[in-house]
């Protein structure tokens, strides 16, 4: 049970309050971007390249422009006149808005058609004739580094290869030394495939430029409205669109998962066209465009190694990564972290030597590198460490749960300095795993596994005990294009004791309208029902870097608590004034200050706030408002212990998840119902890449599954019935001890599932399986080890 400091009526932290935002969503009154309709609005559709790599010889818009209702066709050459045909990426690379001469990936934007209706824009798109001269694309990231590979980014002066950057962390020599002297070394090449966030709402915008006021209102699907406003000002400042003249509105967002962090060409083209025509321009991509052109996630090829003693003590790890970034590095990472937070990959284990390196390459695939419900590349790292831990356990002949218990960082050893430079804030890994083992009946399952094998049936039990790193981040290290990654809250309490609070973050389903209200209720004692939360309008909300990487609670949630504490300090002064006592004589309980020893002498927060407007002490500023910009002293380190049980059909290789227990530790819990909901959703986005999802390209650069017909988002049938629970280890440096949770399950679930499937067939000689583990892939692997020969 979660202990609550406030009554249910106040509804502070720990109460499973039902969500305030639900009312509009269940009645069809949400306001998503495609619901925005402005007078005189025109519609935009985008002509896309059928080739992965080709020269554009000619674009003929004559037939399109002849269609009544088609207003304009915009090409890269048109944008070039205004210097808007290229834009910077968040990683200081560059990306075409529209090409002037070459296309670099299939489905790349080639031209935009503007028309009076959605249908006519699509007609116009079909009628634009483009002459291409196809070239041989570079699709294999390993071959991208061959000496005879064509240099894809010929736009970069002096570029002689397809290498983007090299990154490394840890002590290379020390690690090599441990490996050279180790009893046991396990090594595995693995691919974390290219996948897509596929939020059910695609991306889009309505760009509305007012020529009279020189003012742009941009309704768009963005997780980071303020950062986007700054980016627009930086990109379009030279045409006179400066930051005070830009209002970005991020209305209700139909899922984000990182895919709505980047700036896509469609947004920029819509702005440019609205700027030139003065008409509002709506652009809503369809699902296929979304899957084929918008940012991918993952696509890391990892060579992972682990060294240890023969009795099962982990001593060192070494990871080498080849990152396929597609045509440009358009990752959404903090600027100083080209591999995101991949260096968390030493996991939950106590050892002192690690070395990681990564090289990124250009290929003819769409750009990206977004999160997919993960804190900047943590999923890739966790997959590697958790797979290696299992392989190591197998090699030394130890139970994987036992080996983890013996290698965990101990509760008392926090804060713990990781060999790759992190300072883990807190954790109790032993308690988490023990709770998961008890809940699932671990030892009984091991017995059942033996019995089932004797009958030729395959049962597998897989564990993942991961550490996340979220809440970016402390300003000394974390920025995006130079803007520090703090976040903000502004609280205004009205004379009658009701409040509105605004934030620099933006919910895409996380439930901020409820949880932020609960944080403020916890601190001020104002019932959460009386606190209105607003986000997503840059004209009204304080500056912040948005919602992704599980950062909202660690940053803006902390800002809410700090701003509320400023107000509570003020409330104390007012209460002392009203009760004619000194501040030292007052005590706080949620909702009121009272005189020590005389609890009947009290002033409620509502009375105090009213006095702030009607009878405030002399010399004190009137009103009751506070703002706080929270710069976290450290990141937060949520953790989890997941156990998955699978049954594999010995004939069809069908894989069924029988049970999955997830024990998460996200520190103090604001709303248990919402935390559980986040974990459920994250787990389904964990089984997705483990068993179903992968963007597949052929050698010619064609995407083979770029629609919802063949990109397999799990339905309720594929998604198991999740069992969840928690341990609570507060973040010691965070004002409310919370850590963030939305992404932990997506990070932690895939290795638990794969470890379970490998475990189910390990006795047949299977050591590793690449994700997604499909029945066909498993069938082929079992064929390789001779299982089916024996069976027939």
């Amino acid at each position, binding site marked *: 049970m979660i202990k609550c400091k406030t009554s249910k009526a106040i509804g502070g932290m720990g109460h*499973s309050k*039902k969500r305030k*935002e*639900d*009312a*509009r*969503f*269940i*009645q*069809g*009154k*949400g306001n*998503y971007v*495609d619901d925005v*309709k402005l007078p005189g609005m025109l519609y935009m559709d985008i002509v896309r390249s059928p080739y992965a790599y080709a020269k554009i010889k000619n674009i003929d818009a004559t037939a399109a422009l002849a269609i009544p209702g088609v207003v304009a066709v915009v090409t890269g050459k048109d944008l070039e006149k205004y210097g808007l045909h290229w834009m910077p990426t968040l990683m200081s690379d560059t990306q075409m808005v529209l090409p002037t001469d070459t296309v670099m990936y299939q489905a790349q934007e080639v031209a935009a058609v503007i028309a009076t209706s*959605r*249908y006519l824009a699509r007609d116009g798109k079909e009628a634009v004739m483009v002459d291409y001269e196809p070239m041989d694309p570079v699709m294999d990231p390993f071959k991208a580094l061959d000496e005879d590979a064509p240099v894809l980014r010929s736009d970069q002066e002096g570029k002689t290869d397809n290498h983007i950057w090299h990154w490394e962390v840890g002590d290379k020599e020390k690690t090599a030394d441990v490996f050279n002297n180790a009893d046991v070394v396990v090594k595995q090449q693995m691919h974390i495939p290219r996948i897509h*966030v596929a*939020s*059910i*709402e*695609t991306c889009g915008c309505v760009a509305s430029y007012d020529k009279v006021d020189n003012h742009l209102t941009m309704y768009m699907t963005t997780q980071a409205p303020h950062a986007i406003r700054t980016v627009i000002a930086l990109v379009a400042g030279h045409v006179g669109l400066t930051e005070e003249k830009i209002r970005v509105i991020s209305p*209700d967002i*139909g*899922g984000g*998962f990182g895919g709505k962090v980047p700036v896509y060409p469609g947004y920029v083209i819509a702005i440019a066209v609205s700027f030139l025509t003065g008409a509002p321009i709506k652009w809503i991509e*369809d*699902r*296929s465009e979304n899957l084929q052109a918008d940012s991918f996630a993952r696509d890391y090829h990892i060579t992972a190694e682990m060294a240890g003693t023969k009795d099962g003590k982990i001593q060192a790890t070494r990871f080498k990564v080849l990152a396929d970034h597609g045509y440009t590095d358009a990752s959404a990472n903090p600027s100083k972290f080209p591999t995101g937070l991949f260096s968390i990959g030493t996991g939950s284990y106590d050892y002192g030597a690690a070395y990681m390196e990564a090289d990124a390459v250009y290929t003819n695939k769409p750009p990206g590198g977004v999160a997919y419900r993960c804190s900047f590349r943590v999923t890739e790292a966790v997959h590697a460490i958790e797979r290696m831990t299992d392989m190591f356990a197998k090699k030394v002949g130890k139970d994987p749960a036992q080996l983890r218990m013996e290698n965990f960082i101990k509760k008392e050893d926090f804060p713990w300095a990781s060999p790759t430079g992190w300072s883990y804030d807190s954790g109790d890994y032993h308690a988490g795993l023990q*709770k998961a083992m008890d*809940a699932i009946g671990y030892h009984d399952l091991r017995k059942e596994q033996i019995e089932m094998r004797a009958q030729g049936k395959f049962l597998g039990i897989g564990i993942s005990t991961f550490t996340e790193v979220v809440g970016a981040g402390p300003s000394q290290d974390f920025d995006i294009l130079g803007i520090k990654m703090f976040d903000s809250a502004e609280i205004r309490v009205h004379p009658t004791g009701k409040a509105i609070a605004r934030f620099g973050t933006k919910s*895409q*389903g*996380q*439930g901020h309208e409820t949880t932020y209200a609960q944080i403020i209720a916890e601190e001020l004692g104002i019932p959460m029902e009386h606190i209105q939360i607003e986000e997503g309008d840059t004209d009204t909300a304080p500056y912040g870097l948005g919602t992704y990487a599980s950062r909202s609670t660690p940053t803006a949630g902390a800002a809410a608590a700090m701003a509320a504490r400023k107000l509570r300090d003020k409330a104390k002064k007012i209460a002392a004034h009203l009760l004619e006592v000194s501040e030292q004589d007052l005590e706080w309980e949620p909702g009121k200050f009272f005189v020590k020893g005389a609890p009947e002498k009290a002033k409620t927060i509502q009375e105090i706030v009213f006095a702030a407007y009607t009878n405030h002490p002399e010399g004190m500023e009137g009103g009751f408002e506070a703002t706080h910009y929270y710069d976290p002293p450290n990141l937060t380190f949520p953790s989890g212990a997941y156990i998955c049980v699978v049954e594999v059909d010995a004939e069809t290789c069908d894989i069924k998840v029988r049970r999955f*227990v997830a024990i998460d530790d996200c520190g103090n819990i604001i709303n*248990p*119902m*919402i935390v*559980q*909901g*986040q*974990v*459920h*959703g994250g*787990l*389904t*986005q964990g089984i997705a890449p483990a068993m179903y999802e992968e963007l597949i390209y052929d050698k010619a650069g064609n995407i083979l599954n770029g*629609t*919802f*017909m063949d990109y397999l*988002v799990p*339905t*309720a049938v594929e*998604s198991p*019935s*999740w069992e*969840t*629970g*928690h341990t609570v280890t507060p973040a010691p440096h965070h004002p409310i001890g919370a850590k963030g949770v939305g992404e932990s399950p997506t990070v932690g679930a895939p290795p638990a599932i794969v470890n379970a499937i490998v475990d189910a067939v390990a006795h047949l000689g299977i050591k590793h399986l690449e994700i997604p583990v499909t029945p066909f892939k498993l069938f082929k692997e079992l064929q390789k080890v001779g299982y089916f020969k024996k069976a027939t």
Partner: protein
Amino acid sequence: MTKKITLKINGAEHTMEVEPRMLLVHAIRENASLTGTHIGCDTSSCGACTILIDGKSAKSCTILAVQAQGKEIATVEGLATAEGLHPIQEGFHLNHALHCGFCTPGMMMRAIELLEKNPNPTEEEIRWGISGNLCRCTGYNNIVTAIQWTSAKMQGKELPSTEPKFV
């Protein structure tokens, strides 16, 4: 070339000029301005546009507006009445069966027909029953729970607790 049609949506008549090729979902959203019905894909896979046509759930991106004349169309906007929310809306809210809310209207419309045909579905029947509707946020657990709760509510049975359950 356009055609004048009248669609009966949630009991109200909407007369509009549409091209014969216009999808019903666009007519509902743009001509009738009922934007609670959403569009999540272009292959009739996601179910965000699910509505009821003569009581049967249907993906409104698979039907032309002109084909829907003379039919009783029900969308999410018509669920709540003067007496309050529809049980399925209550069920989704109380059981935290929605996060971003984008799939929710379609999911609820599908659930209504499911419960109409099978007032006491098993968990497996519910999961198969909503397998034409994708949700990316919730992991489906609470959607299943919400439909079970609604099933009890609609039959006047004792209501299950809506507090979250943990291991």
